[in-house]
């Protein structure tokens, strides 16, 4: 009886980690790192986690949680509320619809997929923020942020994959 309970709690804790890790990346994204020039082009860490879990464990990161994480990103990031919520679920939906394509493919293909999807995400953010502020956001910084996000993707994806292999093998 007790061992069954422990087992269930253990399982639940493991199942919560994808959402929690994505949430943690939102908070980490907001912490001041005191690196000159970084703040303007800080890479979008949560986007990488959403992409990763949408491919490998979509059941453990449901759309509603993705939406809430997007709202938190909007609140902390100062972007108009709803922008990142929309972008995150758009990314989530786009990956899920192409899930069969991504499964079992090499890492390079996944990276390429992320490049395309992140470009779409940036374009949506750019259009939405420009429209809501009735002013054009400077495209140059957006491109830099995109490139930095792309460059950091392998590191974060590797860490998430390690986590997945260590704790989410049977889940």
């Amino acid at each position: 009886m007790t061992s069954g309970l422990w087992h269930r709690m253990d399982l639940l804790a493991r199942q919560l980690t994808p959402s929690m890790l994505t949430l943690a990346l939102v908070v980490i994204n907001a912490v001041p790192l005191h690196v000159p020039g970084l703040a303007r082009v800080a890479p979008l860490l949560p986007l990488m986690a959403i992409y990763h879990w949408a491919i490998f464990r979509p059941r453990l990161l449901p759309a509603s949680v993705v939406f809430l994480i997007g709202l938190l990103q909007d609140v902390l990031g100062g972007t108009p509320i709803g922008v990142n919520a929309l972008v995150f679920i758009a990314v989530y939906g786009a990956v899920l619809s192409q899930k069969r394509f991504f499964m079992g493919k090499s890492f390079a293909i996944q990276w390429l997929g992320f490049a395309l999807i992140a470009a779409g995400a940036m374009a949506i953010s750019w259009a939405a923020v420009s429209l809501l502020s009735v002013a054009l956001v400077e495209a140059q910084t957006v491109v830099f942020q995109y490139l930095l996000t792309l460059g950091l993707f392998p590191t974060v994806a590797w860490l998430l994959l390690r986590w997945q292999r260590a704790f989410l093998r049977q889940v």
Partner: protein
Amino acid sequence: MREGPRSFNRLAQPIKTLAQRFAYLGLVVTAVGLMILGKVDQLLMDSFRANVTDAVAPILSAVSQPVESVSRAVDHVREIGRLQQENARLRENEARLLQWQSAARKLEAENKMLRDLLHFVPGAEPSFITARVIADTGGAFAHSLILNAGARDGVTKGEAAVTGDGLVGRVDSVGAHSARILLITDLNSRIPVLVGPNRTRAIIAGNNSNQPRLIHLPPGETVAPGDRVITSGHGGAFPTGLPIGEVATVNDNGISVQPLVDRSRLEFIRVLDYGLGGIVRAPETDRVSAEDAKAGIGKGARRRQP
């Protein structure tokens, strides 16, 4: 979950998929709806933002502290390497600053004399709150900071946020114990300023790059690179004379300003309160004005307590 009979499952699966599709679409519509609602009812969204920020503030505060220590340690090591150079530079600087000091003393004395001559009424001295930066939420789409002080500490919306270098931004929304600062480089930031020795009026407008632009200059006025940009105090939001930056480039694309504040070095920020003398000084001011009234001195000639 218990599996139903096969025939039931065959029927239930498409319905489940359909329901999931609808739920997904619902989320998309909600997100767009929130964006529009934020445009229509900004106050509601501001309070939502402030409340959520308040809830997350303790976590941000806890996480940002070790990061700050590490960055300080790195800075420290870097400084040790440059100690000799730095020393020479500081010596040179000191010699120059001593000259400036004597000039400033002379001007101060002259200024005081002239003020006395003119019966000049000085503006209110600000009270201030110093707070730690607990989040510097980056990205190309918004430039803002979160401080670990809020309404309970006396921060109110619209106040100026400064460091020793100059203006950082203004308080945009306030929670109970956190506040958001909209940086001068943000797309939504507009601050009336004075430029250069002619005190040309203009508006400094952020554009999400690191160099905000000057707009709405009066026709016929010119500014040159190197001109100082200070707050003008027009519109009543800010006091006059807070340094902002220097004109960096002037060309056909517009006039860009290099801010004095280095965003990556922000750790502590002062929030200035130029309101009605501040909470602490209020009774004293009342007493002085009562004495003045008794003595028959007009309101305009009220003296400040030292």
